[in-house]
């Protein structure tokens, strides 16, 4: 029994607070549908995927919390890959991230989501038109900083990459399983802070593997460059395929 309205349970009533006498005796007619709620997004995602394949691009959907170092990692990658990499930036407001990536040597296009908490495949499709892809082999889509909403939206990428940074805590993987079971690569960032923080890297990696046995983990610091060579090698491999 619900304390708010005295209804039986959310699943039985839909928690819909009626302001009129609603007798549940109507003859309802049921129509089968069987369609994914994400169907329209997935259609755009498939279009993006076909476009990426045609241009022989390797595309990563990068997802993490705000402040975990997504843009700092991208700056390091931009210095390594230069004009072979382009970035699509999703931010609620400002073009600060795109400016940083451009200054580090790669092309970037900003999508200001104006409040939306995630990127969808449709907006990514439009963003592609703004990038000169002549020399580009690798596209990284920096999603809005958020561990929840972006995980549901397929953008047509080849793989999802998550960043988990040491100050966030080592318990986040199972708290946000919808993201971590979908990621192919996990970056544990800010490793330079490990002397100061209680973060059990083995635990975070093991929990991520429990959701997704094939996940590849990289322990890195965007600030000091530690571990970045392994990430460069991984990405060089991917774009070479």
């Amino acid at each position, binding site marked *: 029994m619900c304390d708010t309205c005295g209804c039986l349970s959310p*699943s039985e009533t839909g928690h819909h607070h009626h302001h009129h006498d609603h007798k549940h005796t109507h003859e*309802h*007619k049921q129509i089968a549908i069987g369609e*994914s709620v994400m169907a329209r997004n997935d259609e755009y995602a498939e279009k993006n995927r076909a476009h990426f394949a045609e241009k022989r691009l390797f595309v990563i959907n990068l997802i993490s919390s705000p402040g975990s170092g997504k843009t700092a990692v991208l700056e390091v990658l931009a210095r390594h890959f230069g004009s072979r990499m382009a970035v699509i930036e999703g931010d609620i407001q400002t073009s600060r991230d795109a400016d940083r990536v451009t200054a580090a040597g790669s092309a970037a296009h900003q999508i200001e989501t104006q409040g939306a908490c995630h990127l969808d495949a449709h907006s990514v499709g439009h963003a592609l038109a703004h990038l000169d892809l002549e020399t580009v082999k690798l596209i990284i889509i920096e999603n809005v900083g958020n561990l*929840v909403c972006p995980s549901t939206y397929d953008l047509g990428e080849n793989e999802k990459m998550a960043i988990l940074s040491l100050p966030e805590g080592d318990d986040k993987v199972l708290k946000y399983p919808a993201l971590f079971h979908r990621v192919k690569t996990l970056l544990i960032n800010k490793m330079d802070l490990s002397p100061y923080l209680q973060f059990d890297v083995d635990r975070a990696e093991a929990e991520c593997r429990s959701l997704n046995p094939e996940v590849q983990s990289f322990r890195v610091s965007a600030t000091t460059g530690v571990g970045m060579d392994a990430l460069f090698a991984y990405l060089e491999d991917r774009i070479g395929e």
Partner: protein
Amino acid sequence: MHELSLATEIIELARPHIPKGEMLKVVGLIVGPLAGVCEESLRFCFAELVRLEGFPEAMLQIESAPARFQCLDCGHEYETVTVEQFCPACSSMARTMLSGTEFSINFIEV
């Protein structure tokens, strides 16, 4: 937080299935624990939207689908609603997910 977008999507997908002159009464969803959907928030957004869209009686009927895993150590297949539950046969964390991300409209009622 993205539940408003999802509720909008649900209504847009249901709309063409509503026969002319009928009112949408129920949308039946199937939601897995790894779909990344907060049911309470989805119900809240849906209730507001259907009021604005002229289907004030419409409500969601959500069927929770369990996640299914297979243990990589002993091969046992198990269902769970919480991802913190590891293999009930051998307690191993090593597993592969068989299902759990379902998020679909099963039916509507008019």
